[in-house]
């Protein structure tokens, strides 16, 4: 990964102190390659490389005894900064119920993540209600129902094909039955599908959720920037959940998404079991992206 190449470069220049323009250019080219290999989007790569290149012309680096090591540190810090710097908390309603809406591309892990969130917060004393708002995919609500049963949380059985009726009834039920966390699972959709994006915008208007979370597959490539811009501008996000981190994907897509939307990553999915969810740590993710 990048760290191996960096230490190799540093080894070559040990004891030299100053860096030449050529050494810097080679190093910046290596950084760009490493980020692209990690699936960071082109535009974000370009921004990062130019940013780091600027920092290289400052005394902080030029007069540093080990300038390339200092630059690697700056690069890491810049990634951590883009990724949000610290763990980002979820939003709770001042009065229950709190409503969270999950959205994203087909197969990104929304339904499973809904179950993981319910399981996590049940353990913390909340009373989650899982609401299946994917009325299209074969057995989608059955999938969520089975997950709810496995986790031991309430499930709102969909009684109609009308999303607005479903939402109104689910929210009223939550009020009446005292469920304080309503997690709504929506159907996967392409951000380029105008009709489905309009449906999602409508769903959000009906729910007025406290969190609108993009569920993003960590294996996503360059498409991450397009889909993030689209979901954020068209629907509005409050955060991101990055799934399938148990793959060996470097996960650069998440850097692109946070850079382009400015929204924090709140959780990560690390497996297909319902306990495989963790809080997001920017520093760990930065290290993973850099390989």
């Amino acid at each position, binding site marked *: 990964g990048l760290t191996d190449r960096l230490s190799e470069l540093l080894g070559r220049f040990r004891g030299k102190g100053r860096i030449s323009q050529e050494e810097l250019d080679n190093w910046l080219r290596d950084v760009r*390659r490493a980020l*692209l*290999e*990690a*699936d960071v*989007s*082109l535009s974000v790569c370009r921004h990062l490389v130019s940013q780091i290149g600027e920092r290289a012309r400052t005394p902080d680096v030029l007069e540093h005894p080990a300038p390339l090591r200092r630059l690697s540190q700056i690069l890491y810090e810049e990634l951590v900064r883009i990724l949000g710097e610290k763990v980002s908390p979820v939003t709770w309603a001042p009065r229950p119920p709190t409503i969270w809406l999950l959205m994203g*591309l*087909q*197969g*990104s*892990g929304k339904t499973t993540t809904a179950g993981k969130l319910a399981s996590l917060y049940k353990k913390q004393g909340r009373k989650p209600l899982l609401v299946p708002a994917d009325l*299209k*995919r*074969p*057995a*989608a609500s*059955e*999938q*969520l129902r*089975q*997950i709810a049963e*496995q986790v031991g949380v309430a499930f709102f059985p969909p009684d109609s094909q009308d999303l607005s009726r479903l939402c109104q009834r689910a929210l009223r039920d939550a009020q009446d039955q005292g469920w304080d966390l309503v997690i709504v699972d929506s159907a996967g959709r*392409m*951000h*380029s*599908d105008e009709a489905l994006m309009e449906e999602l915008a409508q769903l959000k208007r009906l729910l007025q959720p406290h969190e609108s979370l993009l569920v993003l*597959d*960590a*294996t*996503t*490539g*360059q*498409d991450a920037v*397009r*889909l993030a811009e689209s979901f954020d501008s068209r629907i509005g996000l409050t955060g991101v959940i990055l799934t*399938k981190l*148990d*793959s*060996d*994907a*470097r996960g*650069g*897509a998440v850097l692109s998404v946070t850079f382009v939307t400015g929204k924090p990553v709140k959780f990560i999915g690390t*497996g*297909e079991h319902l306990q495989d969810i963790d809080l997001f740590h920017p520093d760990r993710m930065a290290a993973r992206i850099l390989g």
Partner: protein
Amino acid sequence: IFRSEKVDESVLDELEEALLAADAGLSVTDRLLEGIREGIRKKRFRSSKEVQDALINQIVEILPPAAPFKDQSVPSVWLFLGINGTGKTTTIAKIARWLQKRRKKPYLVAADTFRAAGIEQLKIWGDRLGAPVLCPQRGSDPAAVAFDGIQAAKAQGYDFVLIDTAGRMHTSHNLLQEMAKIYRSTQKALGREPDEILLILDGTAGQNGLSQVRRFHSVVPLTGLIVTKLDGTAKGGIVLAIAAELGLPIKAVGVGEGVDDLEPFDPQAFARSLLG
């Protein structure tokens, strides 16, 4: 895609950007542009359109040719594999429909016995198509289910057996071993190799797609890929890196969630859309 009309090395930057944005990856992009750079230096191109056409031809050369499915034996048995959420179950429905249009009789085997409603999802598709589905108990051994499915299809005179499996991360040794066991089980049921061992790859995948194919292929002999979700804005360029390294045939592409949303792989059209 060109902003400039003159044919000089600045055109290479635009091409590089298009290829990288399409997920072709650095190594394939460098390799493709090397040929183009050579052509520009030797003044072989009179317009940017000629440059683009040359690049498209180079891409087509890397890509595998259109490959038909193996359907000669009876029953023809196809295994659908891949990481979580790539479109295996939906693709089986599409293939079943495609076979029915050719007057074939597909038999579906719901061997994803792990995931919530994995069996039910395939059953609904089967019911919609009027195709039989073997539905085991959740949690039963997928290798045994695959075996039973093939035997049942043979006994009942079906000519195609499509076997759905659970999504599995290529980073999980245990799940890859389970997959190997399912594969061996199909060999036992048939007394020969299954006809297709297909990796279903998400078209939105970045460089990880290559890792997936490498690892799956190191455990079972894949006969081809099906690339899904190319109806969005992702270009599926990782397919180039996979082609350059492994040369596996691409048997079809998924272009939507409906049962008719499957197209044969067309290298020319794919190459054009990569740059378009």
